[in-house]
């Protein structure tokens, strides 16, 4: 008896010399962001130099992965293979790290799309892509609301 796994047909990232350390540790379910070795600022989206002091001495630094929903959209018309998964959620989550907030874009999983709200407490989640040697980052509810 065999199980047919539906192939993953959504876009996957091109891995290059700059982003490879990020995707290598992502496979171990660790989310890291470039942190400036000179001024200590965090940055996302990753740029090749610090956006605060312009140093190129950046270190991929694991972060808590905790944050909150800064904005979101429930999508009913998606491009390519995303069109087969509507409605899906795109979330801009604000990581807790400072001084520069890191607003991270990702699909939100393990959630009823109609329950998502600005300010909701969330965490980075991980999805190992079948038949591809790559892991993707997602947002998911933190589930520690009291």
């Amino acid at each position, binding site marked *: 008896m065999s199980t047919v796994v539906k192939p993953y047909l*959504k876009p*996957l990232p091109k891995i290059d010399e700059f982003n490879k350390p990020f995707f290598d540790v992502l496979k171990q379910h660790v989310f890291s962001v470039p942190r400036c070795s000179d001024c200590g600022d965090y940055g996302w*989206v990753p740029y090749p130099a610090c956006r605060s002091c312009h140093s190129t001495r950046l270190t991929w630094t694991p972060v808590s992965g905790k944050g909150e929903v800064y904005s979101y959209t429930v999508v009913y018309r998606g491009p390519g*293979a995303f069109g087969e998964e509507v409605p899906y959620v795109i979330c801009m989550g604000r990581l807790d790290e400072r001084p520069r907030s890191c607003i991270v874009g990702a699909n939100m999983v393990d959630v009823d799309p109609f329950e998502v709200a600005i300010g909701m407490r969330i965490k980075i989640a991980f999805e190992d892509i079948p038949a591809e040697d790559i892991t993707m980052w997602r947002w998911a509810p933190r589930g520690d609301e009291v």
Partner: protein
Amino acid sequence: MAFPQRQAAIVGVYTTRQGRKLSQSSFELEMEAIKGAIADAGLQMSDIDGVIPLNASPHVGRVSAHQFWAEQLGERPLTLLEIGLTSGALAKAAVAIAAGMASVVVLFWGKSGWELGPGGTPVPDRAPRADAWDFQIFGGGYAHMYALWAQRYMYEFGVTSEQLAQVAVTHRHHATLNPDSVMGDRGELTVDDVVGSRMVASPLHLLDCALDTDGGYAIVVASRAVAEGTRKKPVWVLGGAEAAYTDFYMTIDDPWFKEQGQAVRKTGDLAFAMAGVARDDIDTAGLYDCFTVTMLRDLEELGFCKLGEGADYFAEGHTRLGGRMPCNTDGGLLSNSHCGHPSGLHTIEVVRQLRGEAGERQVPDAKIGLSLAQGSSVHGQAGTLIMAVD
């Protein structure tokens, strides 16, 4: 040093037919538009000595589009090779012309055979590769990025879907008075029509979104010496500027809505200072309205009202025909056309208003106009141009 006011003028404009799935190629639309705008000015193709192509070269990918057009237009040296976001590029062309770098510059665009919206991306047979930080990775596109922006905007300032919808209603009204608009013959819209149309990406409904059409256009800007001999009333360039703020929406630090504004504010402040006119002096404007929310933010960022007050300002009717500064009188990107890189259409409509050629939708005695180009997701890029007739 001051901006060289009234040393260059827009002397020719042309729009091809706009609509879904045109039979002409992008190149054919560009060529039709260039010839049309040159004829509108009463000039010859051989007068062109500068180009602002908005597409890449259709011929040899590794060669700049300027080189392609230099040869295509007749194997003679072109001396102004500009790029940029229409309104800003036209301002730079005016400065270059005033400095003697060129005398007849044509900006042009044509698009056919592809779609901006989600329907333009087919389902592949294996996972395609995309740039690691690009919005394609999470199923994003233009509508989705603006939806994220709209969601946060509505949350911070208490704006409702009904308030966004009034923009679509007004711009459709304008389109009904523009016989060349794509949606004018569909008739008026109501707020209920807009909020009742299907959701594309919450909070944006189908009718909150621009059209996704084909089409082309061209704009000719020329020196004072040339302009004084052309066929139509010259539309003088008074000032203008461009700015880039970010390459991705999601790199913008919080808060997303800043009192000091972003790229649009910067170009507006520069353009008004150069032109020596006040906001109250603008008789008509064309503002980038790719989504209903964009129009409200344009009005705030350009300083016509305060941050968070765009919806109230719009509701007061200032931008509607009959108001004190009618905007997007052609129907805008929401109801006239969004032909892929459509910001030149706003400038063309302002030129037609200032020339007195706008027919049923003519703004009486319009003398000073403004066009705003905006792009790269949410005020990441902007160009503002201020124009006037004598």
